[in-house]
């Protein structure tokens, strides 16, 4: 009995339950997304349209397009991620659905991780499609997959964690659709800078400290994941 009630046993048990619930929520959210097709028919076209508009605004100057490509790629992803965060919030449905889910006894940290994981998957798909778009429209080629892959994955994780956390913060407000971008965009500015620098290196630009920018992205993802695990439950309670 002493062994079973030890703090370590309780921590291990909590971690197992948290990841089990995270998997359950991620599977549910992705199933709903695949059925609703909001990602395919609304978020993805929005990101592509933003890229097109950026390209039109800059005109046919190849060198300028190449230089601006990483930053504009991430601006398109950032704006699309706001829509994805809104959508993730809407999946929880009405107030009644949120209350019904609270009665199921799901671990709030697991719910946060599951929603963030599902949103990260959606963002990664979006990033891959937009990457093809940016290569075609902005005349860039991939010089180093070693930088491109982490420069896509790490911001995707960070934007998802921050998006779900701030989505929960804005969730109770009647003005949540307008409140969420105001909350999220300022805190995601470091991701925009770091991800643009890292992707520049991936596109072959001489970018000193590109590795350090990747570390910034990793720190952002870890910090917001930990904050989400700690705060999602209290935010939902309130």
């Amino acid at each position, binding site marked *: 009995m002493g062994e079973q009630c030890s703090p370590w046993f309780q921590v291990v048990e909590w971690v197992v339950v948290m990841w089990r619930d995270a998997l359950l929520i991620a599977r549910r959210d992705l*199933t709903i997304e695949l059925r609703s097709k909001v990602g395919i028919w609304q978020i993805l076209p929005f990101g592509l349209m933003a890229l097109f508009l950026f390209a039109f605004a800059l005109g046919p100057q190849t060198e300028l397009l190449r230089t601006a490509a990483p930053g504009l790629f991430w601006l398109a992803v950032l704006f699309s991620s706001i829509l994805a965060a809104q959508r993730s919030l809407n999946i929880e449905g009405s107030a*009644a*659905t*949120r209350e019904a889910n609270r009665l199921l006894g799901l671990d709030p940290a697991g719910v946060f991780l599951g929603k963030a994981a599902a949103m990260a998957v959606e963002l990664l798909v979006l990033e891959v499609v937009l990457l093809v778009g940016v290569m075609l429209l902005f005349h860039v080629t991939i010089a180093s997959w070693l930088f491109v892959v982490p420069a896509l994955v790490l911001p995707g994780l960070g934007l998802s964690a921050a998006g779900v956390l701030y989505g929960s913060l804005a969730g109770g407000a009647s003005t949540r659709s307008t409140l969420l971008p105001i909350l999220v965009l300022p805190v995601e500015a470091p991701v925009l800078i770091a991800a643009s620098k890292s992707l520049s290196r991936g596109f072959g630009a001489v970018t000193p400290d590109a590795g350090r920018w990747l570390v910034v992205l990793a720190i952002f993802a870890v910090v917001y994941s930990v904050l989400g695990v700690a705060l999602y439950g209290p935010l939902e309670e309130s």
Partner: protein
Amino acid sequence: MGSAIRLRSAVALQGRFPVLSGVDLDLDQGRVMVVLGANGAGKTSLLRFLAGLVPIASGRGEVLGADLATSASDVRRRVGLLGHDAGLHDELTPLENLAFALRASRLDPGRALPALDRVGLSGRSVTTTVGQLSAGQRRRVGIALLVARRPQLWLLDEPHASLDEVTRSLVAEVVEEAASGGAAVVASSHEPDLAVPMADVVATMGGGAVLAVVPGGRVGGGHVA
């Protein structure tokens, strides 16, 4: 029989407004209570309070032996609440909704299909997304969720509203089955003709307080607090 609900001068606030203003209430396991009252009397607030969704501001409240002030999350896992909106995911089928809820509650998802069958849903209505079902069918799915989860306390907010004759009978049947199986049931209603016959006790609410508690019409008698 153990106590399912024990409230003493329980007060709950929504903002600064007291939605419950000093409620005294007792209900044992295996008993059915119907709560009557006009709109705004506090019936829905009482159900959400008993579910651990509205915090207690003052007084004392115990549900299924757990203190609502300190163990609301324990209470939530053990109660089932059927509101006006069944709280389902429109993009999932009834079967998927129930399987998700059962897995989330650490219960066997194999209970889903028999529960849906119990409420008269089978065939295509089980595999069609909930968004395509009628209001009555959605209500049935909500009832099936309670049947599958088998909570120790059933909280039903106007369970007869907007239902046809067959589904109203079904509500009475599943409530009787739940009470016979040892669960306590609290149902709010605007339809005394339908609700009182299934109740052991009938509470009348007004202004966020319980004004009167009298025996109901359920065979087996009533336990008046």
